[in-house]
């Protein structure tokens, strides 16, 4: 028998080969009422090679909730902003700051966020960081500004996972939410699907076909080590983490067709949690751990159901149409993203779980694999543009839209990572 080389690396060993494969984010739609903000150049910012404030501006712009206004001049954190000038420019909030050296190759960045109409400081956080942590610091500043101005947590410091398929090669990649710093966690000649982040962001569960059949792995991102979480006779797929990170819901076919089971993360303690004569798949826990949502054809066509995580009868959730799949409950538990077939087109939809009202969020034709941002604001999903796999993101109200693509390769299977505190 001939074996392929399978590359499992902790990222850095692989990343230099893939420098041109970065995900680029393009804004294709913005919110209706964007808050006008100015991020002034920070004093001393030029001592660091890479501009801090340009990353902050790009973050805020990409969110679709802000309109970036030119501040006119650099602004420090320890001086009063030029309120009259900023009012003339129509600015509602302004951030100024300073970057200074702090010894041992480190920097201190201090910022002041100010409400312009009220002429009141909203906060003055400080960050100690190395030159290598410049982008990470910028994302933390963006998170701070975003949370102060919108009241909800920012997700600029989170990471996303996705699969890039080029000729004869599949890579499971991890990148910052803005597409930068991409690293390959795994490269294989066989398909990789269904990556799912552990709630602490340290591990990814996924399905790899390297054994000529689907097997579920759990991969520790820091060490690059992984273990088999489910490899039974037949197919093993669709891993989903319990909110406490101790268990995985998986789909196994060891007892017949695709059915739902729960296993401990180490693969022990296999327990069947639902039973049907047909297909049950795509399990996903609600954030509160109360329910497991899944897709089943038990009623004749693929529809979305849920069962109590403690067991019991399945309750049908989707009713309109003959193909509703891939349920993803929102972080607040109030809505459900899923894929619906709508006149032959597969589109991302959002259901209000209280009223069961469904809104279709896209006008594309091959949407798949939705994944909520951890603050629930955006939904990342895979789609196809011009015959090529790309990622896209849309806000839960359908207004803000982004496209994330890689040159000359298919991108698919996105999973938005958790908030890291």
């Amino acid at each position, binding site marked *: 028998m001939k074996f*392929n080389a399978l590359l499992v690396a902790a990222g850095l060993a692989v990343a230099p080969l893939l420098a041109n494969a970065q995900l680029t984010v393009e804004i294709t739609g913005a919110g209706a009422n964007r808050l006008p903000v100015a991020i002034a150049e920070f004093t001393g910012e030029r001592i660091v090679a890479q501009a801090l404030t340009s990353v902050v501006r790009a973050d805020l712009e990409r969110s679709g909730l802000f309109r970036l206004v030119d501040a006119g001049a650099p602004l420090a954190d320890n001086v009063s902003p030029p309120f009259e000038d900023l009012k003339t420019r129509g600015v509602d909030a302004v951030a100024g700051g300073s970057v200074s050296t702090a010894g041992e190759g480190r920097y201190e960045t201090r910022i002041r966020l100010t409400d312009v109409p009220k002429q009141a400081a909203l906060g003055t956080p400080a960050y100690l960081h190395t030159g290598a942590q410049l982008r990470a610091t910028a994302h933390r500043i963006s998170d701070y500004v975003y949370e102060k101005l919108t009241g909800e947590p920012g997700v600029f410091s989170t990471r996303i996972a996705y699969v890039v398929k080029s000729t004869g090669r599949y890579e499971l990649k991890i990148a910052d939410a803005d597409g930068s710093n991409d690293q390959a966690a795994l490269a294989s000649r066989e398909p990789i699907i269904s990556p799912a982040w552990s709630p602490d962001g340290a591990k990814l569960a996924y399905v790899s076909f390297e054994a000529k059949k*689907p097997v579920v792995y759990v991969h520790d991102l820091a060490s690059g080590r992984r273990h088999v979480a489910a490899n039974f006779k037949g197919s093993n797929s669709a891993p989903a983490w319990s909110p406490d990170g101790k268990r995985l819901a998986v789909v196994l076919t060891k007892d017949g067709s695709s059915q739902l089971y729960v296993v401990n993360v180490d693969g022990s303690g296999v327990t069947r949690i639902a039973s049907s004569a047909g297909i049950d798949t795509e399990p996903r826990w609600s954030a509160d751990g109360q329910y497991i949502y899944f897709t089943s054809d038990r009623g004749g066509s693929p529809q979305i159901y849920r069962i109590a995580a403690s067991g019991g009868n399945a309750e049908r959730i989707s009713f309109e149409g003959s193909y509703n799949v891939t349920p993803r409950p929102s972080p607040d538990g109030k809505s459900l993203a899923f894929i619906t077939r709508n006149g032959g087109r597969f589109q991302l939809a959002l259901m209000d779980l209280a009223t069961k009202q469904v809104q279709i969020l896209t006008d594309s034709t091959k949407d798949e694999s939705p994944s909520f941002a951890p603050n629930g604001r955006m939904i990342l999903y895979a789609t196809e543009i011009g015959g090529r796999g790309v990622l896209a993101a849309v806000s839960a109200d359908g207004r803000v839209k982004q496209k994330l693509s890689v040159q000359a390769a298919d991108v698919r299977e996105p999973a938005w990572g958790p908030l890291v505190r």
Partner: protein
Amino acid sequence: MRALISLSALTLLLAACGSQPPAPEQNPAGVESRTPSGVKVETPQVKEVKPDAAFDPNSIAALKDPRSPLSKRSVYFDYDSYVVKDEFQGLLGAHGKLLAANPKLKMLIQGNADERGSREYNLALGQKRADAVRKALTLLGAREDQLEAVSLGEEKPACSDSTEDCWARNRRGDMLYSGEF
């Protein structure tokens, strides 16, 4: 041209591959995917089957003999369906008999789906198709422990155009014998 394989060479392979596919952690290297039409078995003892050799429908050599139904390895399905159509009963009957006559022979059945819709749902659909082939083979003489039904979902299409012809070719179950997977 399709590689041909002798009985003695396949017997060696059977001895080597007589157990379940090894767990990936013991054997982390993936084997290159081989669709039945492109099967190549690397062995020092490959022999051509002589065109005038006696034809035995239950011999393993018949797997590579284009005159034998055993040389066909794929069962095709309708959209969103996992029912084995009547036209494939003869093919499955031939493979069922071969498995019954050669109890050491093992088979991996890979179910496939077309690209439309959810990857995981398509994986489940491919599994249903592989299971339908597995069940048909057991009814026709194969033993359960000779067979493993798995799914490749929409991940390994035989054809990658978004056309009805192409989708039809991708909705299939493939039968791979020991040494071919």
